[in-house]
Every structure is written in structure tokens, then in C-alpha cells.
């Protein structure tokens, strides 16, 4: 691994992210949704004992679970498949640069782009709350935690995107699989768990197994982390129960190990490619 080569890949990739408008579009989407949620969420404050920004953070946490994986997959699915389709992969691999280095370089640029989109998007909401009401220190910390964990959640799905990109037959197939991955992790997983819990009632599964199975999913781990870390956000989101059943480290451990696992899997898939 050489930092020089990783940075070279990241640098070229950063130019591409800016030129293909992904960065502008992602930031715009984040800003629009964050603004909409902040303004719509400002009405019912007070009753739950949460200030405006805390309520916004709670609703933006839910937004982030849907949006960030989508944006990350949108940029990740093309990373390898696109190079292969274009015919530029063979030349790239003839250079003394490792496949892991290529992936890390791309991940660095893509994570940076996600960080910009999340910081600006959620930051706008913070500035707005600051302008029209008081902002507590706890709410500010919750907002910063939201930005940081959103970027971490993004890297999970960047890694999964690379994995699909390296494993699929082409960019089209990778895009289709990316949609499937998004649906499974963000929607179907929770629906499935919900169904089991409904059937199980207050049984052993619901009390002991369910929180662990839930936190194994990076999207849920992200949600649990943000909720467990802030009592007020938990109250505002009404999700404190599941978070209380787990030790504090569980959700962060899940969300931190997922990018590593996804990245290693992507590298393994990439190594099998003969351009």
C-alpha cells in the first residue's frame, strides 16, 4: 500500500465526481430534504421536551437512513464496472498500483464527496435552527454525530457498491443489484424483523435476539447509535426501547466494522477480475 498511489487515484476520482455533477446533485438533495424536515418538524416542538434542532436531528436521522445509502450506491456501483465497460481497466492495472489501492483511492474521494454533501445538507439545518430558536449544546453534538455517522453509513454502502461493481457482469447489472441491496438493507430487513416480532409477541426472540439482529444491519445500527447516544433524540424519535436493550458499544461496533467487511469483500471480488 502506498499513500502516493492511493492519493493519485483519489485525486483523479475527485475531479470526476465534480465534473459528472454527482457532488452538486447529492448536496442539493441533502440540503432540500434537510430544509424541508427542519421546517416541517418545527411545529410540534416543546410538547416532548425537545428543542427544534433535536427534533430536526431525529427526523434527519430517518432521512439519512434512506438517502445516504442510495447516494453511496449510486456512486459506488460504477466504480469498477464502469472502468471495465469503458475499456480503461486493463491499462490502469498495467500500472504498478494494487487493486486495493485503487479501491481505497476511489473510496477516499467518494467518502469526501459524501462528507461534503452531508455537512452542507445537515449544516444548513443547524444554521436554520440557530437563526430562529435557541440551540442547546446537546443538540449541536447530536447534529455533529449525525453528520459523522451518516458519512460512516455512506462508506458501508460505498463498499457494498464496489463489491457489486466488481462482481456484476456489467454496469447495468451492477445498478440493478445496487437497487436490490438498497431495498433489502433499508426497507425489507426492517419489515421482516417487524413481522417476526409481531408473530413472536413478547417472546424470547423479541427481548433477547431481536436487538442484536437489528443492530447487525448497518442502516439500523446507524439509527440506534444516534438514538442511544442522545436521550432527547430518543424521546423525539420514540425509539428508545430497542436502543436500551443493547450495550452501548453494539451499534457503533456494527457501523464501524461494516465498511471494513464490505471493502475486503470488494477487494476479493476485484482481484478475481481479468480485464
Amino acid at each position, binding site marked *: 500500500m502506498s499513500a502516493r*498511489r492511493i492519493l493519485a487515484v483519489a485525486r483523479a476520482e475527485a475531479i*470526476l465526481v465534480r465534473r459528472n455533477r454527482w457532488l452538486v446533485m447529492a448536496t442539493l438533495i441533502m440540503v432540500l430534504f434537510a430544509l424541508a424536515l427542519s421546517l416541517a418538524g418545527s411545529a410540534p416542538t416543546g410538547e416532548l421536551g425537545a428543542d427544534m434542532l433535536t427534533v430536526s436531528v431525529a427526523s434527519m436521522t430517518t432521512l439519512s437512513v434512506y438517502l445516504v445509502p442510495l447516494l453511496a450506491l449510486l456512486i459506488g456501483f460504477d466504480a469498477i464496472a464502469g472502468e471495465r465497460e469503458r475499456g480503461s481497466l*486493463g491499462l490502469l492495472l498495467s500500472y504498478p498500483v494494487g487493486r486495493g489501492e485503487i479501491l481505497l483511492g476511489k473510496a477516499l474521494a467518494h467518502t469526501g464527496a459524501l462528507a461534503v454533501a452531508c455537512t452542507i445538507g445537515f449544516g444548513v439545518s443547524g444554521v436554520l435552527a440557530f437563526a430562529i430558536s435557541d440551540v442547546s449544546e446537546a443538540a449541536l453534538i447530536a447534529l455533529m454525530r449525525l453528520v459523522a455517522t451518516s458519512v460512516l453509513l455512506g462508506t458501508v454502502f460505498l463498499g457494498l457498491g464496489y463489491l457489486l461493481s466488481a462482481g456484476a457482469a456489467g454496469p447495468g447489472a451492477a445498478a440493478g443489484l445496487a437497487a436490490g441491496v438498497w431495498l433489502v438493507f433499508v426497507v425489507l430487513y426492517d419489515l421482516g424483523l417487524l413481522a417476526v416480532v409481531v408473530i413472536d409477541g413478547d417472546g424470547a426472540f423479541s427481548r433477547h435476539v431481536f436487538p442484536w439482529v437489528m443492530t447487525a444491519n448497518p442502516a439500523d445500527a446507524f439509527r440506534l447509535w444516534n438514538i442511544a447516544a442522545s436521550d432527547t433524540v430518543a424521546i423525539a424519535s420514540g425509539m428508545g426501547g430497542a436502543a436500551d436493550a443493547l450495550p452501548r458499544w453494539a451499534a457503533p461496533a456494527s457501523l464501524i466494522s461494516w465498511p471494513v467487511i464490505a471493502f475486503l469483500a470488494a477487494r476479493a471480488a476485484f482481484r478475481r477480475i*481479468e480485464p
Partner: protein
Amino acid sequence: MSDPVLVLDNATKRRGSATVLSEISLDLTAGTRLALLGHNGAGKSTLIKAVLGLTRLDAGRITVCGAAPGSAAARADVAYLPEAVAFHGALTGREQLAFFARLAGEAPKRCGTLLDQVGLAAAADRRIATYSKGMRQRLGLAQALLGRPRLVLLDEPTSGLDPVSRFDLYRIIDGMAAAGAAVLIASHALTEVEARTDRIAILRDGRLVADDTLAALTRAAALPIRLRIRARAGAAERVAEALGGTRVNGASVELCCPADEKMAALARITGLGVAVEDLEVTPPGLEDLYRYYSKEAV
């Protein structure tokens, strides 16, 4: 004799039941230009990919400057110009080249000189999406010049280039060979390769059917030399009878003879005196040789 830069030892590659490369042994020393000829699907690109380490051999061995193909050491010594080279259209030529320079461990500052050398200085800051096919090929050549390679692999380098660009390309290749690089050129452009390479290897259905200098291949093939004699008006009949050749377009006679009988034939022709107006001697060309070797049963 310097150590060979590239050694192929019984290299064999199968794809399903087909043998794409069959027991190919070949070596290439520094400063040598080798033309690798063959039909589409003869295995030229596969051979290059095996040398790059992009595809694994089923049997045999390849070493590049003593290292395994695809190893970091081998990749640092090899430059590659793929067939129909492709880049990121959204990058400018300069950005793309600077990217490769950084990967090769070379200062991006040298890119300006290289772009100038391949005639892309004026287009350096335009996006590659706006480049013509020839311009992309030139950019591909510029990246192959990065990092002082010891082995240069060029896959159909002249495709899409106009005659002037081709001339420039071969000038640059000569420069690389003169600087000590071993150059392997896979090509269809037979006539240019003839004048510009030191050795010729011919692949047919994954087998290496020839590997020698042009002169040695010509000798081994023993292809006939073609003599075309133009007779003076009215004397064509007499010339044809005397030499036993075939009549072509009224006034000329064509004669084929093995290389070692050339002088005897010439003596007979000059013996005809004033009946002969002109004489043209055509040695077998690369095209004839290529046809001979690529059709020959193994």
C-alpha cells in the same frame, strides 16, 4: 549478450476447450523491436495480457525483467498501449496523463513535454471526450512513454492513425528502442512493420509459427522471386517462348524463380538483347511471407 527482458517459456492458455496460446517460447532482449503478427483471434492480445499478468497461464512460465508478470516489479518496468485505448472522457489530457505519471512514480511536470512530443500540446487542457480517435491514440502513446519502461507492449498501435501520425509513432518507437527498451508491436499493418522492426513473430491459432529476422524467414520460406520483363513492341511472343514465363497484358512476361536461380534467369534475360525493354525484380514481400507462414500446416 544482455539478459532477455521478456521470456516466454512454453506459455499455454486455455479458454474452455479452446487453446488460445499453445506452448509459446519467445524471448526479447533490450533494444529489440519485435513485430507480433497474426489474424484476429490468433492470440496476440491474450499473449500481451499474459505478459501484463492480467490473465493467468494454464502452463508454462513468463518472466518480465526476471519478475513474475503482474508483480509490482514487473509492472514498474512495463509500458502498455492497449488496442482501442480508452480514458475518462471527463478528464483533460493533461489530468489523465498526470494521473498515470503519479501511479508510475514520475513527476507530473514531465507531462507537458510528453504531450508536446506526441503532438497534443494544443489539446492538453481539453476534455478527452472531445478528442478524435487519433488523438486518444496519441495520448495512449504518451502514457506509454512514462517512467522509462524496459519493456513496451503496443497492441495495434497504428489503428486509427493517419499516415503522418504513423510516421511519428514509429519515430517514437525507434527512440524507445534506441534508449534500450524492448518493444513488442502487435500489428496488422504489415508493410510498416517490415521496415521498422528487427524481428518478426507470427501467431497462428495460438501457435508461434515463425520467429526470426525478416531475412532469415524469407530464406527459410524460399518463396520465389518474381521477374517481370517488358518486351519491345512485337517481341513479347519471342521473349515468352525463350523464357517460358506467362504473358501479361500484351507486352510483358512474368517469371517466377527460386532465389538461388535468380542470377541464371537474369543471364538468360540479358541474353535476349534488344528484345527486352525493361526488367523488374520483386523479392517476396512480408505479405507473401505472412500468407506463407500463417497457412503452413504445423
